[in-house]
């Protein structure tokens, strides 16, 4: 859980801009649910090209937050989609779903922390 995001890397990526961090986390919550759903739908439809596209997009989003595990997991699904071998896709997508929940929780905590620190400042 502690590794769901890399806070130092994330802040460096934003030049330490806390306001931008808030916006980015808001955007994550606005977008990632749909992106994950597209991955899950593609898996349940056995739609390999669709899985390739959806997992690629989700991978891009989570990689911005330094979520290594979720990024890796999305990459595995993307590769399955590209190669057309969906044997393990069901299990992998459940794993990704769990990692996305962890990432969401970590980002919510991070937002809370920075709201408080900027309120005090």
């Amino acid at each position, binding site marked *: 859980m502690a590794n769901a995001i890399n806070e130092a890397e994330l802040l*460096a*990526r*934003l*030049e330490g*801009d806390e306001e*931008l961090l808030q*916006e*980015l986390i808001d*955007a*994550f919550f*606005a*977008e*990632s649910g749909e992106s994950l759903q597209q991955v899950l739908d593609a898996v349940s439809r056995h739609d390999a090209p669709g899985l390739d*596209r959806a997992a*690629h*997009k989700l*991978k*891009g*989003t989570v*990689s*911005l937050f*330094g979520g290594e595990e979720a990024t890796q997991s999305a*990459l595995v699904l993307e590769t399955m989609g590209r190669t057309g071998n969906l044997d393990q896709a069901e299990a992998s997508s459940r794993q990704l779903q769990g990692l996305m929940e962890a990432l969401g929780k970590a980002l919510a905590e991070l937002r809370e922390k920075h709201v408080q620190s900027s309120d005090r400042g």
Partner: protein
Amino acid sequence: MSRVLIADDDRVSCKLLGGLLKKWGYEVEVVHDGFAARRELMKPDAAPLAILDWMMPGLDGIEVIKAVRSAAHEAYIYILLLTSRDQKGDLLEGMDAGADDYLKKPFDADELHARVRAGKRIVDLQAALIRAKNELQFAATHDTLTTLWNRGAIIDLLKKELSRRKRTGGELGIVMADIDHFKKINDLYGHLVGDAVIREVTRRLSLGVRPYDAVGRYGGEEFLIVFPACNLSALATSAERLRCSVADEPIETNAGPLPVTLSFGLASAEQIEAASLNPESLLGLADEALYTAKALGRNRVEPAAAMLASAPSGG
């Protein structure tokens, strides 16, 4: 301020790119698919810098780049291609398609900033070159004192109008106008006053013509005006209006208000047989008419005597 177009289907990535670029002083436009990116970049006033995601719905980044590069834009668009870290072999394809640089996701702010700055250097250099080219082009075709078309340019323009008339038909007239007794103004009041008179005459002539008429400085105190879609009688009306605009009100100069008049010679393309109609013959006809106007006492408008009195009109 430089404008940057961001095209990425990942809205979180767009937020990050847009947020950073705005902070660095760029004006940001955002689209989320390849078709919208192509549409924006094909506009004549497209952003000079573009950051394109490779994988997008509709058209991908490579297809957008190919479309942009095959279009005949005057200004170069500097394109940064976004790829993902594990997308190794495809990089060459991106550069070959016409990307100027690339950035791997997830990118660091420092790296993004450095690459965008590099792009801005190219874009600024390009803008300076286009500006210099336009200034040279203006200087080569315009008169310094009046900023009217210079002699070479107004004759070129007449040439173009004549060949257009050859293709599409229609009327075409020219007016030669010469300031009366200009040498006396120069001798009595000096060249600075003479220059001021030429500038004010220029201003009144320019105000008195239609937007699609062209006024040029043909010689020292001589002007050539090209009137597309104007027959001889319309030409006479226009020239008379121009004559009054100068003669009716003295010109204010450092030497006090000076009465200034112009003589006008008119010629129309319909007065010359098609086979011998060219800039030289038309100018010669207007010049003769101007000479007549001078001989008959100046400050007057004289149409050219028809060269082809015997020519059948209208076939």
